[in-house]
């Protein structure tokens, strides 16, 4: 499941970009932004549960990254593994925002479905329902699930980003998935009760 880092083309591209950032931060930073904005926004969106907050958090994370890079020696920048490093920053930014704790879900009036709907609006609704279900998880589980399954980080990268052992993270993901599964299979309860 987790490819060795050296064989991962994304990792190789990140290393090349890190080398460029080390020699020309201002000239290469835009490339970092365009390459990472979508994933940092997605992580923030699914951790925080709000588009406006997520946009601010993603921007904040990138600005912090720029300032940090401005203070690093070239050698240190070259050694950076950009994806986990930026993940650490965006997760910290999200954690520092008050809403991360337990997001209260609103009753959307329908249930998350397994089948992707053909109609884009309906598909969006289903995704929103899933997102709000995700928001009911405790922060640590939510963050672990978002990094693993929304962003697609390897457990090795997650361990690096979050500073926790892989085993702990696997357990958090597993517990979170189990909670989601139980919530979905619990036909007898309405959403409000489930998330109370």
């Amino acid at each position, binding site marked *: 499941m987790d490819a060795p880092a050296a064989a991962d083309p994304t990792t190789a591209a990140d290393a090349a970009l890190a080398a460029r950032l080390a020699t020309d931060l*201002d000239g290469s*930073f*835009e490339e970092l*932004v*365009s390459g990472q*904005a*979508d*994933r*940092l*926004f*997605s992580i923030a*969106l*699914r951790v925080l549960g709000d*588009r406006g907050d997520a*946009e601010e958090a*993603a*921007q904040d994370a*990138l*600005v912090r990254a*720029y*300032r940090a890079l401005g203070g690093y020696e070239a050698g240190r920048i070259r050694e950076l593994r950009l994806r986990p490093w930026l993940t650490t920053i965006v997760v910290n930014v999200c954690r520092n925002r008050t809403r991360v704790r337990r997001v209260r879900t609103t009753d959307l009036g*329908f*249930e*998350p*479905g*397994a*089948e*992707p709907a053909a109609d884009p609006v309906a598909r969006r609704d289903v*995704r929103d329902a*899933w*997102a709000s279900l*995700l928001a009911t998880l405790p922060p640590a589980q939510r963050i672990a*699930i978002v990094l693993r*399954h*929304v*962003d*697609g980080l390897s457990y090795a990268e997650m361990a690096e980003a979050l500073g926790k052992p892989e085993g702990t993270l696997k357990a958090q993901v*597993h517990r979170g*998935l*189990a909670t*989601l*599964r*139980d919530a*979905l*299979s619990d036909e007898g309860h309405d959403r409000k009760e489930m998330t109370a």
Partner: protein
Amino acid sequence: MTRLDPNPAPAAGRDTGFAAIEAVLSTLAEPAPARLGHATLVAVGLADDYAVIDSPIGPLRVAWNGKGVSSVDGAPDDRAFEQCFFARTGRRAMRVPSLPPRLARAVERRLAGDRRARIDLDLRGTTEFEQAVWLKALEIPRGEVRPYGWIAAEIGRPKAVRAVGTALGHNPIPLIVPCHRVVRTDGYIGQYSLGGPANKRAILAAEGADPDGLEGLAKAGIRYVGSDTTRIFCLPTCHDARRVTDRHLQRFHSAGEAYGAGYRPCRHCRPAAESGAA
């Protein structure tokens, strides 16, 4: 609506009970809003936003980034402005509907003459000498003018009068940095980078300085005025000089003449600075 089956048919690998959930989770990534990338670059000063404001000389384009205001420009249209801005800074500027509210208020206050209105300036790519000239120009109150030589003397480079003129001509943030308040040493209004002398006169007139009156004094060779009650001499637009009534107003062609008549220089406009201690 189809419900998620919590126990789908066993698939290869572990956690088969979660496969369907994992599949849906993997669709929850979303593209960032289109503005996020540009907004980030603006925040760190690698790109700029700009908007159009009104001024006594017509619409002006004001650009800014996270480091401060980077340009005030009289370009005729967006395209001309963006090309000129890129040529000078190497950065892209993107037009937005208006200035951020705090900056808009500060610019409005500053143009109304409130020098305390805080406006950060992005002066990257300019020399220390230029910055010293521009910061000194910021000290000139609305409605008053100072000669190039005054700036040169005040920044400790009394012989650099021409260089002061050049630096003022390169001011990237005219109006906010009021280079229009700096005039020729002989008292004539002089050149202006933002559209020429006519604009300089219009701005000075709008600020309550009297360009015709100033050029009248220049023609008559009058460089300083003083009051025979206080025995203090000033630059003609100094707010202290403007309070002197006609009956007591004395006119001088040089600082030496004023000293000779027993006058001392005003401590506010420091008129002797530009004459090199007379």
